[in-house]
């Protein structure tokens, strides 16, 4: 009785009333989300890490049936923009600061069965290998059920993200861009130099152990995925010529071909036409990303019809 009586001793029952207010707020917010179904531009998330989670949740809850999935790092994420997002056959499951391993793990654990996975091989292999905690949270059955039935709990519907999305649309006048009107821009020289030097420094550190461990783990998952009749294709994005000749990238290619030999796996050859522009040596500009996406799509469709 003593234990129970303390509840009634709260001055004004602040704790009970606060949790009651919370329940009302969550219900009201869920109701508003359900009724209004706000249009959130996931490519305009306020920061790359929130964007990562939104992309993953969007895949798990909305795009699990996409026939082609791109697994990559921020380098491939440049192809996730307001033009490409509406392509119903493709889902770009690329994550900033992660390797393609994170994407493959998510596909594997979420039990989705795309027909083809396009895997980026490049500088992204040197990112943080994978965030197991994040994948466990995303694929936790209880959290999955909660987010499925109460979308308000998805990162996409975070109150600040909604405000940000609407602000981008109405204050900063972000509009959907016509693909044919996209013009190439000159990268900011300072940012380009900083980025380029950063990758060259990374190469000087000779991160060979990371390359091996990531590719080995990727092979383990890919073997499992292949058992589910999922086909994998590898691709590289165009990059600055200094970086294309760097020690680390040559090592990555050599090791990738060792783990995924060209005879057994399909490699999409890099585009032969010049004119691709990057913002920092590896990340394609908006226009170049659109151009490369078109190329990747064309090649994928050709290869999808052929057999290895």
């Amino acid at each position, binding site marked *: 009785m*003593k234990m129970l009586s*303390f509840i009634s*001793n*709260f*001055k*004004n*029952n*602040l*704790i009970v*009333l*606060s*949790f*009651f*207010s*919370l329940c*009302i*707020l*969550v219900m009201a*917010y869920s109701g508003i989300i359900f009724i209004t179904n706000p249009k959130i531009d996931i490519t*305009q998330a*306020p*920061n*790359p*890490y*929130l964007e990562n989670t939104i992309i993953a949740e969007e895949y798990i809850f909305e795009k699990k049936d996409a026939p082609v999935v791109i697994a990559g790092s921020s380098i491939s994420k440049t192809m996730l923009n307001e033009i490409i997002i509406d392509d119903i056959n493709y889902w770009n499951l690329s994550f900033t600061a992660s390797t393609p391993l994170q994407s493959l793990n998510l596909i594997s654990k979420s039990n989705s069965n795309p027909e083809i996975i396009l895997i980026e091989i490049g500088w992204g292999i040197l990112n943080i290998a994978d965030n197991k905690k994040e994948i466990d949270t995303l694929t936790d059955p209880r959290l999955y059920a909660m987010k499925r039935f109460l979308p*308000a*709990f998805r990162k996409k*519907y*975070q*109150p*600040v993200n909604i*405000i*940000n999305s609407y*602000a*981008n649309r109405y*204050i*900063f006048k972000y509009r959907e861009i016509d693909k044919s009107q996209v013009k190439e821009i000159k990268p*900011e020289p*300072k*940012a380009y*130099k*900083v*980025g380029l*030097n*950063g990758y060259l420094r990374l190469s000087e550190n000779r991160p060979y152990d990371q390359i091996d461990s990531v590719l080995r783990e990727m092979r383990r998952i890919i073997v499992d995925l292949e058992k589910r009749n999922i086909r994998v294709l590898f691709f590289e994005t165009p990059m600055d010529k200094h970086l294309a000749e760097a020690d680390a990238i040559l090592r990555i290619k050599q090791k990738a071909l060792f783990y995924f030999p060209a005879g057994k796996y399909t490699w999409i050859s890099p585009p032969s036409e010049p004119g691709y522009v990057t913002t920092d040596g590896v990340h394609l500009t908006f226009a170049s990303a659109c151009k490369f996406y078109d190329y990747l799509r064309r090649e994928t469709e050709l290869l999808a019809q052929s057999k290895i």
Partner: protein
Amino acid sequence: MLFISATFAIFTAAVFIFYYIPCLRKYQIHILIIASLLFYGYNNPYNIIILIISILINSIISYEIHIHKRYALLLTVAGIITNILILSFFKYNTFITHALSMNASIPEKMMHYIISISLPLGISYYTFQAISLIIDSYRQTTNMTKENIKIGGFIDHAKNSALFLSFFPKQSSGPIITANRFFPQLSEKFFQSIDWRSTFKLLIAGLFFKLVIADNLKEYTFWIRYPEFTALSSIDLIILMHAYAFQFFADFAGYSLIAIGIGHLFGYSLPMNFNYPYIATSCSDFWSRWHISLSSWLRDYLYIPLGGNRKGALRTGVNLLLVMVIAGVWHGATLNFLLWGLWHGIGLVAGTVLKIFFGPRNGNSMIRNIVKIFLIFHFVSIGWLFFKLPEASHVYAYLASIANNLFIKPNMKNMIPIFIYSSPVIIHHIFYYVKNSGKLKFLSKYDYVFYGLLLFFILLNKGDENAFIYFQF
């Protein structure tokens, strides 16, 4: 074990249940000591050994100070030196080893071993508390007397000292509580005495500051890193500098509120660490509002014993500089922390000099206060760059980039979320004035709506969980 982790919540709940079981009431101190040692050794069990050694040394010395009054001064000096040596060994091992290796030949194996010794969690905090135990025992400002210490005996004193030094809510990053404030609180605690209302408020406000504000702002201030920031526009750099000031406050104030709230759950009152620091109108005002438990410790155990402001203007200036440099080095053995201390020391000296030349101003002009708040906030924000960036040259590069990158286009995409996440900190500080005017008193009837809203944001808008910034010290 992070305060914001599920493991910590389960751990605290289990300790709480055992603590208030009526038949275990006389073992409450034992329960808290065991829990504190478990908490302390959770990530690195070897830390427990160091903590136990510190507890033993300080219990023995403080006990002897009470018993053998003739040697009290000698024991006090020995106690302070021992504590400083222990702290220096762990905190400055890399720095000292490098310095020694330049002049003497130290075997390479030994050098690597010494450098590889990790910094035990919270050692800076419990060492300062241990020094307060020694000094307060010498000054006889605790409730301990020779008579009651003799009645309880050494074991009783060691038990009390162990809880004082290890109490888990304040173990990792304070607030620093002094012996004269903690020992009088040692008594049996009752479940019915818990102030649930204030505990709840502290915990929710702390979690909101940490999870919603600090952890979200962190995703933007991430870009304050060299050389990446050199490519950002001046506007972006200024906004990020402000964002880091807000993040730092939210992170540390959030941690402190949670620590104080957990202390309340076990019947202990820990000192408040923050009092609206960003409305400070001078550097000395800032230090009476920021990390109050550290600044009070430095004032009581260092600045005043050095002579404080009682020995002329020159000596006051030297004392201020010395105390702030020590405060800087207390955070870590890097040039940046030393410069940060010096930066604040210069600010304090400049404030004192201005006061001497212009005298204290009468009246309370609103515009003058706003200008002062603006200047001090920016002075402090520039100082935080020494915390965020690992090298002094990076701080210089950051400030140089602000001056040089005026023509780079700012990234508008970041502005709205940074503003939204910073606004609760700004509102919190504005609330100081509103609170004092009493105009919003009627709203206190509906405080449950406010706390419900904070819970709502904690649930739906928290950032990616991260360690507290102050855990590294």
